[in-house]
């Protein structure tokens, strides 16, 4: 261990508190029982699809279109997930096939 037990515990405590803080802020701003303004209700309803769209890009943030393999494994696997899902509408099937295909592509095809 590079640090003492005490200091290590302190770091974990700080990381824990700051992480919780980012998650609790909206609940502090709009506590239970207080009327939620219409604008916030609206944002609460439309944010999930926007955030999920952002998270798809967040997961793919490290790909580089200009360097081999030009994001091909990610794009192929993502396309297969979408097509398979439109076709079968089965979450586990889409995610399972997409993941195995991606692993095969980066381990065997685009080396």
């Amino acid at each position, binding site marked *: 261990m590079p640090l003492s037990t005490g200091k290590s515990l302190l770091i974990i405590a700080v990381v824990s508190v700051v992480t919780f803080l980012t998650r*609790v802020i909206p609940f502090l701003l709009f506590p*239970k029982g207080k009327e939620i303004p219409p604008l916030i209700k609206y944002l609460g309803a439309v944010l999930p699809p*926007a955030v*999920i769209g952002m998270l798809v890009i967040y997961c793919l943030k490290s790909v580089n279109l200009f360097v081999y393999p030009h994001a091909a*494994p990610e794009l192929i696997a993502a396309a297969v997930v979408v097509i398979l899902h439109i076709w079968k509408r089965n979450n586990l099937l889409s995610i399972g096939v997409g*993941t195995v295909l991606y692993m095969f592509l980066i381990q065997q095809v685009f080396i």
Partner: protein
Amino acid sequence: MKKKGYVRAFKAAFPYTIPVLTGYLFIGFAFGVMFQEKGYNFLWAIFMSVVVYAGSGQYLAVNFFVPGIRFVDVIFMTFMVNVRHIFYGLSLLERFGRAGKKRAYMIFSLTDETYSLLCTTKIPEGVAEDKFLFAIALLDHLYWIAGSAIGAIAGAVIPFNAQGIDFAMTALFIVIFTEQWLAGGKRIPAVIGVVSAVLFRILCGSDNFVLPSMICIMICLVSSRKYIEKNSEKGEDTYAA
């Protein structure tokens, strides 16, 4: 009777959490390996996964365990890597308000994956809402703890080549995105989210694009409120949760 309600809720919730199970076991595993290489054994990994519970946050935190680290840096960097979470609670104010004693834990355990499941999964019939949401949150947390413990114990010894298995998480978000798109409503916010993220990924690079993306998303959603609400009235694009 109360206990039976929980058993039913966990049984109903489990299938929805299987993609997170796959993803968290392996992302958690990678965290356990990294932390163990720093000189912290599995008890430390478990402890951190229990009390922090954040994917990218814990990956980043591994770098804090060096002599001379300043706490102001720990606070600032942790805040920045988790800043997107500030917006998540807005969608769950009313639902968590009905969660009773579990409310604090529900807020604590609000990761990207749990947030996405909580916002998009329909509560099955005959299952209490608060118990069902709690079951999803707790199962996800347990997968994360288990993954990091296994990683810290097994070290770098992996029985097979697991490179790329973390794509399960990407695939989960793609599936949820597709599902929402096919459902017909909320397509405008979905497009706003993707376009903002791509734009700022290009402009700001892979390490600094989340906060500007989120701000851009908020501005776009607020400024197009009339348009989005009008479309929802026409039934073309409903936004009601």
